[in-house]
């Protein structure tokens, strides 16, 4: 038995983008090859390694009956379980069906709905098994992913900053697109991680990394809707990759209720 750390990578309901972020780190992974053995990573290799795993990276949300059982198996086989990405952390874009009509969604999306057997909701991994760390992002940032793996390898506590995207705009000198151009931006209520790339390219933040610490989207939405941004624009902004994150879904609900009143 080698004393390398055994890594497993598992996919649930997701687009594979986060696993690609891991593949993009090929140079770093090679550099880590002496310490890390990739025992199970179907996206990269057809070898199906058996457990147990020292670290498992889990992408995707729980969307089918089979997922419900498989995530329990993954948990049982993993010493440390880290979820990667918005799907695994808050449900992902597929969680838009939560609270809506599942039947209607299936009929609207699939030409032959009778073949679809999934749960009525798409839910985060932490709702089903204990999770040791949630790495945010849609997709996750390769640098952060490598960093947490290296930190774990060396026995350091894994952590990433949980401040807002705005701080990163300010550090890089990006002029605020909300204040200077009137674009709606989720940056003030979204956790950093991407390096504030959307504002740098004159786009408001889409909230890929989910709510920042003690996030206050209700206040931001109240301000934006009072400044010429219609509810029809703001609700879809909140209902992206982290639509089911409680802070975002509550703010969307408040906006919709406010509009009905």
């Amino acid at each position, binding site marked *: 038995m080698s004393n390398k750390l055994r890594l497993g990578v598992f996919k649930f309901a997701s687009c594979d983008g986060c696993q690609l972020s891991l593949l993009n780190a090929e140079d*770093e992974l090679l*550099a*880590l090859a002496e310490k890390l053995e990739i025992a199970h990573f179907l996206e990269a290799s057809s070898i199906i390694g058996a457990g147990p795993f020292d670290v498992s990276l889990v992408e995707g949300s729980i969307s089918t009956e089979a997922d419900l059982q498989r995530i329990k198996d993954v948990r049982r086989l993993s010493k440390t379980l880290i979820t990667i990405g918005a799907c695994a952390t808050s449900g992902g874009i597929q969680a838009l069906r939560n609270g809506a009509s599942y039947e209607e969604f299936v009929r609207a999306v699939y030409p032959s709905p009778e073949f679809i057997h999934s749960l009525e909701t798409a839910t985060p991994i932490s709702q089903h098994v204990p999770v040791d760390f949630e790495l945010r992002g849609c997709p996750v940032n390769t640098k952060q992913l*490598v960093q947490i793996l*290296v930190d774990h390898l*060396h026995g350091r506590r894994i952590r990433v*900053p*949980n*401040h*807002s995207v*705005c*701080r990163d705009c*300010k*550090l*890089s*000198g*990006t*002029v*605020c697109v*909300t*204040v*200077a*151009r009137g674009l709606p*931006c989720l*940056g*003030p*209520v979204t956790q950093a991680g991407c390096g504030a790339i959307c504002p740098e390219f*004159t786009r408001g933040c889409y909230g890929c990394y989910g709510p*920042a*610490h*003690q*996030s*206050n989207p209700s*206040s*931001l939405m*109240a*301000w934006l809707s009072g*400044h010429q941004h219609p509810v029809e624009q703001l609700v879809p902004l909140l209902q992206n990759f982290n639509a089911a994150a409680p802070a975002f879904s509550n703010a969307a609900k408040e906006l919709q209720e406010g509009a009905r009143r």
Partner: protein
Amino acid sequence: MTSPLFLPVAELPKLLARLLELGYKVIAPTIDQEAIVYSEIQSVEDLPRGWTDEQEPGHYRIKPTSNDRYFDYVVGPHSWKKYLFPPLQLISRAISGEEGWTFETCSDAPEQLAFLGVRACELAAMKIQDRVFLDGAYVDTGYQRRREGSFVIAVNCSVASPNCFCTSMNSGPRCKTGFDLALTELDDGMFVEVGSSRGQDVIEPLSLHAATTQHLNSAENLYARTVSQVSKHLNTDDLRNRLMSNLNDGKWDSVAERCLSCTNCTMVCPTCFCSHVSEVPSLDETVVERQRKWDSCFNLEFTAVHGTPVRNDVRSRYRQWLTHKLATWHDQFGESGCVGCGRCITWCPVGIDLTVEVNAICGGES
């Protein structure tokens, strides 16, 4: 010092040429990303001539003016602190070798910077940061080097924005000290005051004529007009004690409901000086870099002591910010931490205005 001089508008390029010839990198206002920001310029063409800014709480736009003045606007999203106290600094490096670990101090390559267009409130902000970084037993040598190497050309404001309250903070709009040269833009050129022997050395070869009484009068009129444009006021009488005796006022809850804890106010503030230091190892752990980055009292992790945040809600973090800036800064540094530049008001994404909050929390009167 010499008495005031007059620089005809057509000769402004000569001043710039002089600075460049002396080896200065000239940093000045320029238009980028729909805003007037500070950045390196090569010619006076790069200045926002004929442009101004429009500011309100949470709102900023640039627009053309009907004149062709070079400096007809106030302060924007950037401040000079990004040069004197850069947002990301490499402090030191530890390298593992055969003999064990070696340590080296990193310092950025010294650059000679000339800041053109520094406003009165910004001169005051530099003084405040000087006290923070240079006074006392622990001197920030990087800051010291950058500050000493920089050449400051102030500009007296010809307009004030609705968010300016420098008159309340006794920091402007007139530039009084802290500059090498100060310009006041008149119809046909610049009224030039020399504030240091370095300023004298720079301006000397331009062989300018002395300013006339008429120039002086026009400059005085301009100062008076700008003062009359400052419409925002903060009552600073006994402000420290008024705030500190209202720490449990219910109004803190009201601002906490609106505040996003997003850090923008602290990032744009020209006096906020907080940073955090972290050790960043290379993949193979043979090199560890010590990095210093701007941080903010609005960040939960910034308030962590032994891993646990001591200011665990937005209310206590907003209160920390406001009371430090306006009250306990006096205890720590013997003055207020606010110069009334209005940046935190303009660049707050939900338009929170500290002067309004102060009035709500402890009344407008002493």
